[in-house]
């Protein structure tokens, strides 16, 4: 591993300025669970690592009581999310995803922001944030801007972030009542496992709790970047949700996916797992809605 200098700015502005001084040879580091692996394997060889750890506002997790908007600092660790009662109760889909990332050690240091910006097709953290219509707040040399979380990803390991730009936080808009959400990582092992396929579903029903007014079906490892199965979502909106229609949605989602064969798993099986789990997770959402009222 090549030697590097480790910088610990205390503010976002300072971090951006550091980056500006050595833009070609510096790299931001969050928890480092992806960065350190890449350094050790020689995939990247920066002279400067700019740690975002000391920037306090980036580690904040809180819900605005007035607006009901949830704000997740990019440096919030998976373990923090996993242990938060608010996340467990109000955002089960986030809990499902982060509580099964890697191992306890990885979750203790790995951050949600790093998970997004690392931008692998299998990022567990991306799926729930897309399903929840999360908005990413970016801050760079040219100032602030925002975009939908789903639009961050360009290709594997590639995001829309410009050089020197930092993901500051993710904002989750208030959730309508009668909403249920859940995620499953389908893999071979119970821990230390990248998903063979990741499936997240969010459903909002109307006051009668029969008709779907909003649906999100999000898939990981189903395409080069995390994706939404728009066709399957469209099928559900305006309809009465029951097992039959979820089976149909599963089929559509599987067809929409662009799964591939790889050493890790076969495309047909991944498709099959999408089909099965859209139904299972959809039913779980209904269960959650029922239990919450």
């Amino acid at each position, binding site marked *: 591993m090549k030697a590097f200098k480790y910088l610990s700015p205390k503010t976002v502005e300072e971090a951006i300025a550091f980056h500006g001084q050595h833009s070609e040879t510096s790299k931001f580091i969050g928890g480092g669970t992806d960065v350190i692996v890449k350094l050790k394997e020689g995939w990247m060889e920066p002279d400067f690592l700019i740690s975002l750890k000391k920037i306090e506002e980036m580690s904040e997790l809180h819900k605005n009581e007035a607006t009901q908007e949830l704000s997740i600092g990019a440096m919030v660790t998976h373990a923090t999310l996993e242990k938060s009662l608010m996340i467990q109760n109000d955002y089960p889909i986030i809990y499902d995803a982060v509580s099964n990332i890697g*191992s306890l050690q990885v979750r203790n240091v790995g951050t949600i922001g790093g998970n997004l910006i690392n931008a692998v097709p299998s990022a567990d953290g991306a799926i729930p944030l897309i399903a929840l219509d999360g908005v990413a707040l970016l801050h760079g040399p040219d100032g602030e801007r925002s975009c939908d979380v789903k639009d961050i990803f360009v290709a594997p390991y590639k995001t829309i972030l410009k050089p020197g730009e930092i993901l500051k936080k993710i904002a989750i808009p208030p959730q309508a009542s009668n909403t249920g959400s859940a995620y499953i990582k389908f893999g071979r*092992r*119970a821990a*230390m496992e990248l998903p063979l396929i990741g499936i997240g579903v969010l459903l909002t029903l109307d006051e009668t709790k029969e008709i779907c007014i909003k649906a999100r079906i999000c898939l990981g490892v189903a395409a080069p970047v995390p994706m939404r199965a728009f066709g399957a979502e469209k099928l559900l909106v305006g309809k009465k949700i029951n097992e039959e229609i979820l089976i149909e949605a599963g089929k559509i989602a599987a067809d929409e996916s662009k799964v591939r064969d790889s050493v*890790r798993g076969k495309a047909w099986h991944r498709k099959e*797992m999408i089909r099965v789990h859209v139904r299972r997770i959809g039913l779980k959402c209904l269960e959650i809605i029922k239990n919450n009222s």
Partner: protein
Amino acid sequence: MSKSNSDFSVVGKRIPKLDAAQKAMGRAEYIQDIKLPGMLYGRILYSKYAHANIVKIDTSKAVALSGVHAVLTGEDVPEKMKMGFIKDNPPIKKGKVCSFRDEVAAVAAISPEIAKKALDLIEIEYEEQIGIFDPEKAMEKDSPLVHGHLKSNVLKMPWDIHYGDVEKAEKESAFVVEDRFTTQWVTHCCLGTSGAIALFDANDNLTIHTNTQIPSLAQKDFLESLKAMGLENKRVRVIKPIIGGGFGSKLDTYAYEHIAILLAHKCRKPVKIAFDRVEEFKATSTRQPTIIYIKQGCDKNGKLTFRDMRMVLDNGAHTSWGATTPSVMLMPISSLYRVENVKYVAKCVYTNNTYSQAMRGYGNPQATFAIESSMDMLAEKAGIDRIEIRRINRNQSGDETPQGLKITTCGLEECIDAVEKELKFDGKNEKGVGTGIASLIHVGGGARIYGSDGCGAILKMDDYGKVDVFTGGTDMGQGLDNIIAQIVAEELGLLAEDINVVHSDTDICPWDVGAHASRSTFVAGNAALGAAKKVKQKIQKFASKLFDVPAEKIEFKDKLVFVPGDQEKSMPLGKLLRKAHFSPGGTMLMAEYFYDPDNQNMGKELKGNMSMTYSFGAHGAKVKVDEETGKVEVLEYVAAHDVGRAINPLLLEGQVYGGVVMGLGYALTEEVTVKDGEIMNANFRDYKLFTAKDAVKIKAPIIETDDKDGPFGAKGIGEPGCVPTAPAIANAIYDAVGVRIKDLPITPEKVLVALKKKND
């Protein structure tokens, strides 16, 4: 009369590993931690192709790199320096490579980074050849040859065995089943990766620090390498650091060890080669993969009539112990259950894949997977209960099997009973849930593979009642040190912590054939016990004068030497030893003992009682199959073993738990994925070793049969835990959802395909 555990004060006790704290605190020195003055770092360059001619190697840029002390290619390796028991594997290849794992160059430099950089500077021109990766295709007449100088890819091995009359027995059978099973490449996954440090003294004597399970045999291999290098009549000292897991992976010497020797000799400095995880996956050996054809039959009462097995073994490009696994497979094939007529033919075939080695069970898990899956199929065909057919055919004490194995003690029936007691086999499970059972036989009293199956021990007492035991045996994490300490402590009336076991250095420790075949507790244990008994006699003799009583009246307990019933005649052992030492004509109390069991080599006919005793076991699994995803969840697991006697039940359970989890990985998730000879998953992300979270709760009933030859009645139990795991799981899956998976590992994809086929 057999003794019960209450007769012992140290044996049979759950004494935690004596080195546990040292390891938990990070103080144990592994090869990675050892740094010698002036040490250089070696690194190996591997082939870019599965099969190619080396047209040209240009090392000039690497040689010129500052900090590089030596660069070696195949040209620098003496012609006679070859590895493996048939010596078909030079440590660096010359002119041609036959697998991705083939070494083509090596460097030594002042840092690992520079060594790595130097490798990148070596330019090699290859001419790719057609590779052959399917052993059955490699057997065909017109197949390309892996080694051009040979006439065929099929190795000359003796595995063609026929006991009784299989053809006749088949004709007379009421029921016959036949099928094909296949098992995959898996690898040991030792947490401590491989490594060695070689150094020469001014007189060209070699010291090598290396991770090995066979210090004495490795010493021999290294001596041969020195001889090939023109260094005759030299000494080789093998020093074993603390080893982070063996599981058979260290039963042969590896190219990196011989390369470290070459580099150290060339540089006149210590050279260390230490693998990273990727290299560990790619350049160490796997379990022997198999293609198995099995046919067996029974009469109308369910009694086995014959067993006919044929195997094709992918030998890879070079030969190590994988090619000899049939010698152990023969044991379950001929002797798991009573079966008189047995046929077994195995062909080892060169391919351009990686080559295999010893791995826990040494072929037994592969053979038992086919046998025990087939037993369930036979039971079903004959309409006999699965447990019943096993009871009918069970081995029993006093049996002699067609192979000539003499079953002295056999607790198989008790093991089956224990499994049945723990799991319900009444077929009344909820949908998708099922149970399975599979049994095992394994060597439990050494295994005579070489001319000697022996192990030496030297025992030395100090002036304070403490003991040093120098054993030939190897502790590689399994806890042999504890076992020896408990055995010696029991014999001398001491505590386990009074015994210091030294097992790390061929300059100090006597000879041993190696930590293989579940033999260490039995053989190294008996050697230590023999030495302890000798020393005990000496002490008795001395005390007999002191106390003026006959020697046999003197007993040892709680660190005292005493005459029972006579309070006057009692002395702390330490005091007595000092008396012996510091009296005129003083004496130090020491003893040596070499134990070589009275077992037999298999002769030309491949018959003979290779072990003094055999361990038995039965495993039961309860699984739940998700019929939509194909995923198998293990709900309960019972692994009952006849262990003779548990010297330390805590460590024994540890061996069983570890074995079972290894076996579950074998059954369900683990596979070295190989594509055209190249390993595609050389990391723990994609090689699906079970994690702590995947591990299931295991019950491990211990059956004690008090074997007459074992130390305090013990048999070996190092390997059995992973032997019948896969068939127990496969049988449970069949019970659960009616599909039989014959190809390991049993992945969700395979289960789902089978379910679809069944439901179509």
